[in-house]
């Protein structure tokens, strides 16, 4: 660790991992609820478990992004963080607000939570992924503004690099687009239209910039490839991401009541959306293949390569699978969407956060890389989680295809719940793949505590 203020990243990373564990516990519970419908009912009904599962994902990724920025920006700008104290204060604010929100979901009926938190003053709740109470949303904005102030001020006083500028652009975009979560018009078409400005323009827009910047940073560090070479790739990737992703929002506008031209715009631009992810795969492999010597942190290299491949498969290939309007007419909102969602989030964002944690954590703990034994354990975790995620995706895809056929294509279409019975076999298989994923996650946690001779940090 070159700058002492980088250490504020540590609690962010620890919180991210802790919330990741929570997300997977609720994922497993839901996996079981798919096949044993009254499991945990009425204590934790499916809709609540799902809300906790997805909200925890968003929150832990945000913790990961913020931790990554606090680690990466001082090194890129070659200066200490503007205010480490503000960063730590915001950590506790965000953690307490996040924990209180999750407890609110679990302990209080959702409607009561809405009443308690001022939803009658400004109604923002009740929408998928944006279920947070108004107070939490305001808290997120305050934390985001303080965070961006801290990062921007650090950048202003230090060196400006392409990586830090792209990262900052992504982070500002994240904050700006979140503001649309406060806009909740009565017209359902308008509501959905702008709802996607948060959801889509995050994950298929500005988050891709954050992801590319984080990946580029780690690749510079673990390969030693010249910054100029990596920056050129970064320019190409973010251009492709923005050109395809922004108008690609149209693939959510096919059936919500918007004009028909969105079927063309959405189909054409979102069909191109795999290209930036493809470029990221080529980028990751290209940089790793260029290195002259092995970096002592082999695990970080593996996570980085995994990010490239899995993001392309999940976001790119599985996204394309159902993105054309004539196909989406049949597949919309089926288990094919769930398959895509799982692999895309895992491949693009879970893996990139775990990549930077893998790279930064040993440095934050005063060593260049963890011991061989610890890294082997970490790499086992990578393979267990990644392979099980591939199977989760395949089983959900199979369930989705069967669902589409039985419910929407067949001459004698079956009702939704009857179809669910027909595809239960795949839900069981998905559940067991989820169990393997959680074993991988436990292995990942264990890797932090495996002892052995670590690579010492060489300081100039």
């Amino acid at each position, binding site marked *: 660790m070159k700058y002492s203020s980088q250490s504020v990243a540590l609690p962010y990373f620890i919180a991210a991992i802790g919330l990741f564990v929570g997300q997977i516990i609720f994922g497993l519970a839901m996996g079981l609820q798919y096949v044993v419908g009254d499991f945990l009912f009425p204590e934790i009904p499916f809709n609540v478990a799902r809300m906790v599962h997805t909200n925890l994902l968003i929150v832990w990724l945000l913790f990961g992004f913020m931790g990554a920025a606090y680690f990466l920006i001082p090194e890129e700008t070659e200066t200490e963080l503007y205010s480490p104290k503000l960063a730590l204060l915001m950590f506790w604010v965000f953690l307490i607000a996040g924990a209180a929100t999750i407890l609110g979901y679990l302990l209080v009926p959702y409607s009561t939570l809405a009443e308690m938190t001022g939803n009658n003053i400004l109604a923002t709740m009740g929408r998928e992924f944006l279920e947070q109470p108004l107070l939490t949303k305001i808290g997120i904005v305050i934390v985001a503004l303080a965070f961006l102030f801290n990062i921007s001020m650090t950048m202003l006083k230090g060196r400006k690099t392409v990586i830090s500028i792209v990262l900052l652009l992504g982070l500002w975009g994240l904050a700006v687009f979140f503001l649309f979560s406060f806009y909740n018009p009565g017209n359902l078409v308008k509501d959905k239209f702008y709802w996607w400005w948060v959801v889509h323009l995050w994950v298929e827009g500005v988050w891709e910039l954050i992801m590319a910047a984080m990946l580029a940073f780690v690749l510079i560090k673990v390969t030693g490839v010249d910054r100029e070479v990596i920056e050129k790739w970064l320019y190409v990737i973010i251009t492709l991401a923005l050109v395809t992703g922004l108008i690609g929002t149209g693939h959510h506008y096919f059936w919500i009541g918007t004009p028909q031209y969105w079927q063309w715009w959405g189909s054409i631009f979102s069909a191109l959306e795999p290209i930036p992810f493809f470029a990221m795969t*080529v980028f990751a*492999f290209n940089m790793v293949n260029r290195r002259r010597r092995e970096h002592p942190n082999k695990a970080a290299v593996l996570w980085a390569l995994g990010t490239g491949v899995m993001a392309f498969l999940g976001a790119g290939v599985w996204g394309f699978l159902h993105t054309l309007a004539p196909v989406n007419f049949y597949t919309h909102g089926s288990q094919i969407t769930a398959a895509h969602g799982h692999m895309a989030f895992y491949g693009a964002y879970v893996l990139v956060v775990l990549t930077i944690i893998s790279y930064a954590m040993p440095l934050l703990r005063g060593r260049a890389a963890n011991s061989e034994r610890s890294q082997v354990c970490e790499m086992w975790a990578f393979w267990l989680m990644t392979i099980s995620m591939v199977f989760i995706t395949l089983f959900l895809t199979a369930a989705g295809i069967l669902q589409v056929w039985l419910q929407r294509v067949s001459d004698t279409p079956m009702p939704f719940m009857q179809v669910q019975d027909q595809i239960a076999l795949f839900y069981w298989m998905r559940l067991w793949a989820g169990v393997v994923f959680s074993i991988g996650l436990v292995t990942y946690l264990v890797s932090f505590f495996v002892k052995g001779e670590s690579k010492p940090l060489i300081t100039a």
Partner: protein
Amino acid sequence: MPVEEHNLLKENMPGPPLAVAAQSLFLVNLMIAPGIAFLILVALWWHYRDSAPLLARNHLRQTVAASLWGGGLLVGVSVVIFLLGGFDNPWSWVVGVIYFVSFHAMMILFGVIGLNRAMLDRPYRFPVIGPKLLD
């Protein structure tokens, strides 16, 4: 050309443009312009099959062969799945779509490795379906 001559940490794309073009066309054929890209690839291979430097010739041979075998297996097995299972059978769609998507993605990932090898001035043999490298 020996690999040692290049500084891979600084050069953007040290590999021969013809080899990079071959691997790119292989990928374009799979992803954006199926058929058209393959025809251009075959034309390139036909034109340069004897005259190009060894590395570029290898990449041209590999990509043409991989396109033929890969395309054959992609389309052929899919057709067999539907012919055996029947178009009205949902299980044909389950197996057929998953096979097509997975095999197609696998070919792209092999292509990514091939493209990187070409860009870094290194030879590449596609696993199983690639012909032996020329010496």
